[in-house]
């Protein structure tokens, strides 16, 4: 195990979009990161048995972390985004944990990997990456009187019941009032 007291820095920042696509045929949803200009909502195309329709774009970014002391580096291309718990389900274990930790002045965010059409849940981000990401944000929060903890999104029923919200710029390309969002899930 490294003995370095890591000093993390966010590097190689690349802005782009997280694109949500839904298949009309199988009902599957997949997400991916795109650096194209502005992905066009409603764009439809066929791919094998799937009929994909772009249902949502969210401005987001990719990044790496590097330790300025030991040069340990970590890539976060597999991170779709961070989600915050809205407390939608009182019996949800994330909500139970959120309440417990907030009493200790620790705020949680959920880390989600990308979705593929064959999975109901987002791909998991390895624990070592979440440890580094948590350490990075806590190092940045030098004036804070609380801590952040970034935990994996591993709810059994995926997004089907969860009403948590991503820290993405969904619908923020316009200053017009947001319409009521329709979940792609």
């Amino acid at each position, binding site marked *: 195990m490294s003995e370095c007291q890591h000093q993390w820095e*966010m590097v190689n*920042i690349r*802005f782009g979009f997280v694109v949500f696509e839904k298949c009309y045929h199988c009902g599957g949803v997949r997400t991916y990161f795109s650096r194209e200009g502005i992905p066009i909502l409603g764009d439809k195309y066929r791919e094998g048995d799937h009929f994909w329709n772009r249902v949502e774009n969210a*401005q*987001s*970014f990719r*990044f790496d972390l590097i330790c300025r002391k030991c040069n340990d580096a970590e890539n976060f291309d597999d991170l779709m985004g*961070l989600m*915050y718990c809205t407390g939608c389900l009182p019996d949800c274990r994330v909500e139970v944990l959120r309440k417990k930790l907030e009493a200790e002045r620790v*705020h949680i*965010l959920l880390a989600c990997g990308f979705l593929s059409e064959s999975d109901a849940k987002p791909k998991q981000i390895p624990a070592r990456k979440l440890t580094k990401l948590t350490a990075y*944000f806590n190092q*940045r*929060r*030098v*004036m*804070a009187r609380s801590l*952040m903890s970034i935990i994996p999104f591993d709810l059994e029923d995926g997004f089907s019941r969860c009403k948590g*919200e*991503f*820290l*993405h*710029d*969904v*619908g*923020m390309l316009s*200053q017009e009032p*947001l319409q009521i969002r329709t979940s792609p899930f």
Partner: protein
Amino acid sequence: MTTQDLIEKIGLKPLSRFDHRPVEGVYISDMVSDVMAGAKSGNLWLTVQTHKSIVPAANLVDVAAIVITGGKEVPEETVELATKYGIAILSSPIPTFELVGKLYALGLGG
């Protein structure tokens, strides 16, 4: 400089409930992702975005306060979430450019 000083000196209107704290520098962006990448702890975040996602983003990077410029109305759900997290949301009728001038004159930089 603290959030209390800014409220008194340039007439920012507090919308949420929070504890006053020191302010160090200003960050201007209307993108949550940009703030996550670049804002610093203790910054004053100037924006016209009012969606409730600005609250957990502000909390993540520990900005001292979010200032909604140009008199834009802030949804109640955003204010409620900010109060829950103890995040300061301040409002100003002044456009961003003009407000930046006032903050600069008070000694706040980027």
